[in-house]
């Protein structure tokens, strides 16, 4: 794993933009088909730079639970490393898009509020990890890459 590239990737994610809104980017790490790197190793490497929580989005977990976990992680000012292992459901995609567009969550009837809004804390970011083949063949949302700023490709 190229440490320099990872370093730049983290640096770019930490950046607070002045020329565009929203001011933070979401990051994407793509594991290319031939890459042998383990996802755990990637999240461990990132842990050396920032305080990050790994969340796996797979068949065993529901969108609402993932959203709860991300809200909880952000409330602790930590970063989120979201490993995508199934096609993204409508509730999670809504929140990922809202995070990308406004750097905030917007949930209906959540935590006792008609409209729950939570800004992404200044010290938190969200990195999505997925395999290239998975993105190309299993993610049905056609503008998936458009949700992210910097993309790190692991070869």
């Amino acid at each position: 794993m190229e440490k320099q590239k990872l370093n730049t990737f983290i640096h770019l994610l930490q950046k607070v933009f002045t020329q565009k809104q929203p001011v933070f980017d979401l990051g994407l790490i793509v594991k290319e088909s031939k890459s042998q790197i383990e996802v755990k190793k990637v999240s461990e490497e990132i842990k050396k730079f920032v305080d990050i929580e790994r969340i796996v989005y797979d068949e065993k977990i529901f969108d609402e639970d993932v959203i709860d976990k991300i809200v909880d992680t952000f409330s602790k000012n930590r970063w989120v490393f979201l490993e995508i292992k199934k096609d993204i459901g409508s509730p999670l995609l809504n929140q990922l898009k809202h995070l990308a567009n406004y750097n905030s969550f917007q949930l209906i009837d959540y935590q006792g509020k008609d409209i729950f809004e939570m800004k992404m804390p200044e010290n938190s970011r969200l990195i999505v990890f997925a395999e290239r083949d998975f993105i190309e063949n299993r993610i049905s949302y056609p503008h998936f890459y458009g949700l992210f700023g910097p993309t790190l490709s692991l070869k």
Partner: protein
Amino acid sequence: MPNPETIRFKSPEELKEEEIETKIKERGPEGEILGGIVFEEEKVIDPETKEEQIKKYIYIGNPYEEKPIITKLETEATQEEVEAIKKEIIPMKESFEILEAMARTYKHRQPLLIEGPTAIGKTYLADKFTELRYGKGVKPLDFYCSGQTDVSELMAKWVPKVETEEEKKKWNEFLESAEAQEKISQIAQEVEQEEKLSQEQKLALIHTKLQELAKSAGLSEKTQWRFQYGAVPKAMGLIKNPDGSFSFDEQKGTGFTLHIEEVGLAEPQVINALLKLRGRKGQLAEEIQLWENGGKKVKSGPKFWAFFSTNPPEEYLARNEVDPALARGVVFKRMGELSEESLHLAADYYFTYKLSEKPKEKPEGCILDIYNHPEIGREISKVVSIFHNELNEALKKGEKGRQQKIPLTLDDMARVADALIDIQIRNKETGRLDLAETLRNLIHFYYLDRLADEDLKETMESNLNELLEGDTGKIEFEGKLLTRKEIFDILVERASITEEEKSRREKEEKETRERQLKQAQFDSQDALNSLLKNLKIPESVKKVLQE
């Protein structure tokens, strides 16, 4: 002298209209757009209390039009907020076309659908339009269609109050099954067919059916249920409270802006649900009826407005067209690609750093404060906008080996501009900023590294090199035909020399001041010594002087 019979005195309304139109069409010394959005306060008499009060309004019109159609809307935003929001909008022709359409349809309670490429800024402008009416930081209620949108998220649903993780799992797994979808749609049909039942009777029927559903899912038959409205009824009855929070009243809510994005991806059942929003004479429905709450009507508040957006079909794999029934029920505006002129304008705004406060101190990693040198920014903007345009054209055809499409957005350009402030590469020979290499590096990171098509990547790399250093990329600069890299080097050298000169002068001035201070100290010491040696001065005075 004009014939007195032809002199016409303008009414105060007409004069006011002319004043607003002048402000809408206002331009700066270099022809740049300053108008488009105008804030005004007006004294009005409250019809109920008969008291005079001040109301705030915004006027929105397209300043590129010779005779702009201007829409006046009441606002909760302050003048300072409106001015700040204006500064965040790049005054491109397309932006004002969209804002003008939004203002006009909002005023007439008509739903608006804009189909246009990602780069046109539909979401961004929906956000700014909401802020213009409610104040900075207020976001529209958003709903995104995805190809697997759950209609219940849009309209309404019953959620079982489950106690354990196991029950929750059972219910969610059941909901994902085809059996569940079929049973839910059966409930809807049965409830809708029972026209003679009262609302309470319908709710009782729903509860009976829900308990059957719970049983099928493996839950207790005594499961409690919670009713939850979706995005559409919520937006119809929302109330924005003075503290910025929202509350909901299905009968007396004022309503809010609902933005439904990527409606081209919506499945037929989602479209059917959205069609409920169609009202009379092309307006939004006054109310909607939902089977889920036993047919109770949800009223549409006076500030409720629905804005739909979608990308052109060619940006979707399956060439998703907007459903014709939906298209007929809305004001449908189709936008083309950003014009080259607008793209250049946006690039100029980003690279001359007009959209934000400039850093007060040089940030770490910054070799040259290019944000203080618009002459450099303008040259960078030419290169980036050409590159952006070329890549955008190539991407429209799709990439080899990629199912997903990645349309470019103006954000890509903004990211490069921002990164250029503090991610700079130094030229080892000159010690100055190597602008061409820095730009190449950042374009690589933000534009090229995400391409899956290696051939396209290679072509674009070579195009960029040609643009920067090749003969075909040469342009005339101060009477000479030069490559962009040569122009960058000249401008960077000038800017750096100015910087070096400035610090050399500061250093010299500091040294001069220090020398003068030291000289003054020596001179005063000499004077003192000569006084002390003077025999005519009494010893008592010398003692005081020594002290």
